[in-house]
């Protein structure tokens, strides 16, 4: 019996209503996240990858209830966050913190570094000024900044330093789970490496659990224990990092990995390029959502939604053709 996961999503769904047409008389539904089951064990890093519009950011926000999911459950330590009232939710949010992509827009330009990092201590714990100062100073050092940065404003800091401040602000309440939404995507590669190493160190020191959302497969591989691949609001493959990167099963995962340029000169196969673009999530294709771009697609893929099925222990794939029990319906 494995331990209860720290975070468990059951049938998580979020549909946006999108008004369109003359005077918004027509209403269309954007299927941003559709029936996602996912869990993260305590102390693990789950990397959530996919291209823009696949729903990975919406999923991250649903976990925090920054967006109210349309349906499903978000279980944190066994409690359904969606059932909590405002007071109880606030208690839980102390345990779940978030870091966004662009620190310059997530940090208040009128707050000094010290004030930004101290704010959660005041709102959540009601600490006195002197106690706050101590905790802030200790946290700032943990993220690799120093005394001299405390009284600076965000615009006086570099992108990497700002992201360190955002991390300190998230970490100062000693949360159990951090949702990291593209935390290094706005940074240069040399600075990105510094932040990645910091994230790895913080995780070790505090036994943190990360939901790490990114479009950058290299970054995700470096930090994650498990990988979940999303396409058009659905999970297509979930499994241990080694397995997903080493032997991807879903054709989309395979194509995605083949598309990433690697800094090693090699003969690039330009014919192995995924055709077409991601269809609109307003009217997602029926059946397997990837069938419009899949080189293998057969009749069944156009009609039936493939369920996530195990292909190895802890490794699941949603593909009619690549899971071990190929359906008989495919043959006439």
């Amino acid at each position, binding site marked *: 019996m494995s331990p209860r996961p720290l975070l468990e999503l059951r049938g998580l769904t979020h549909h946006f209503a999108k008004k369109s047409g003359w005077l918004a008389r027509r209403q269309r539904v954007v299927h941003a996240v559709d029936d996602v089951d996912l869990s993260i064990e305590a102390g693990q890093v789950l990397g959530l990858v996919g291209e823009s519009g696949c729903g990975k950011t919406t999923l991250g926000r649903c976990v925090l209830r920054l967006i109210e999911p349309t349906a499903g459950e978000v279980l944190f330590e066994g409690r359904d966050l969606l059932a909590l009232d405002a007071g109880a939710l606030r208690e839980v949010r102390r345990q779940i913190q978030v870091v966004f992509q662009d620190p310059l827009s997530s940090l208040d330009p009128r707050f000094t570094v010290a004030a930004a990092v101290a704010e959660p201590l005041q709102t959540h714990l009601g600490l006195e000024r002197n106690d706050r100062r101590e905790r802030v100073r200790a946290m700032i050092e943990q993220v690799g900044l120093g005394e001299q940065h405390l009284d600076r404003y965000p615009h006086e800091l570099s992108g990497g330093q700002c992201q360190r401040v955002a991390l300190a602000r998230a970490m100062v309440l000693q949360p159990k789970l951090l949702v990291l939404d593209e935390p290094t995507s706005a940074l240069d590669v*040399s600075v990105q490496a*510094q932040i990645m190493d910091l994230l790895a160190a913080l995780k070790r020191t505090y036994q943190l659990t990360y939901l790490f959302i990114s479009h950058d497969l290299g970054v995700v591989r470096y930090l994650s224990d498990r990988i979940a691949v999303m396409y058009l609001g659905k999970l297509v493959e979930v499994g241990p990092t*080694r397995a997903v990167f080493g032997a991807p099963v879903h054709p989309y995962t395979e194509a995605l990995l083949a598309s990433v340029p*690697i800094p090693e*000169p090699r003969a690039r196969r330009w014919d192995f390029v995924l055709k077409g673009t991601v269809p609109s999530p307003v009217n997602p294709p029926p059946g397997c959502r990837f069938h419009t771009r899949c080189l293998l697609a057969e009749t069944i893929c156009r009609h039936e939604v493939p369920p996530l099925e195990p292909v190895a222990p802890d490794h699941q794939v949603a593909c009619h053709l690549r899971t071990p029990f190929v359906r008989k319906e495919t043959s006439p």
Partner: protein
Amino acid sequence: MAEPLLRIEDLHIAFQTLAGEIRAINGIDLEIERGEFFGLVGETGCGKTVTGLAVLGLVPKPGRVTRGRIWLNGRDVLSLTPRELRRLRGGDVAMIFQNPATSLNPVFTVGSQLVRVIHLHQGGERRQARARARELFDAVGLPEADRLMGVYPHELSGGMLQRVMIAMALSSRPSLLIADEPTTALDVTIQAQILALLHDLQARYGITVLFITHDLGIVAETCGRVAVLYAGQVAEVGPTEAVFNQPRHPYTRGLIDAVPRPNRDVDHLAAIPGTVPSNPGLLDHCLFASRCAHAWARCRAEQPAAYDVGDGHQAACFLQAPEGER
């Protein structure tokens, strides 16, 4: 040897600001041969975009070229009159940018914008321009040219818009295409499509591409030669394979080691310590010395020349100086 298509000699560009003069480009030398796919790679602020703009005579105000020459097809770009420059831009050189949506006018159809460019630069009849536009749509892999020419930019995806921009850039049959981060705003699967298209066009039309990017992976997979810029100088230049397999400048090495790989496990990313000097042009020693693990007294006293390490591979680092000269 034949004259290279593009030769940049000792280029210096400075920006006059209220806080004083910021020297962004500090002596860049580059030669790009006809038919090359040449990569210009570096981090934010290293001067790669400004260098590209300078080739078009488009250095943004308050910047200006303070020293150096740019030769394109044997012509001295910096001495051209505004009229000659305009003809150059629509003729011999074309440039595409990171965000195609901001390069196109939202209130005109993509077809009319392309036709207008063709008409403006090549004259002739509208009908001929339309036919040429249709041809170009085909060439860049936009199907159903007739329908797509009638749509507005917001109706197309980022990848398709970039194809429209490439069609526009190709309309004058330029000898040099400057591509400034053309795939940075796109998803990886779409990026792969655009890179494949540029490769195909280069093979078909023998066009020379100056590819500006921050992504070492793209350089490794698409460019024949590469120059690594640091603080407005060329740190290292050479055949892509040599530069990646045997980097001779500590900055190049550091950059390559900092990239997390999707194809292998890495225990530790080697971050480059410190930050880029804020006004590097004021320094009279190696600009990388303050961040370099190998730096010694000489590196903090004078600037290294570009030392030849064979096969057109050069690195501006005293480590590469011949034994006697260190």
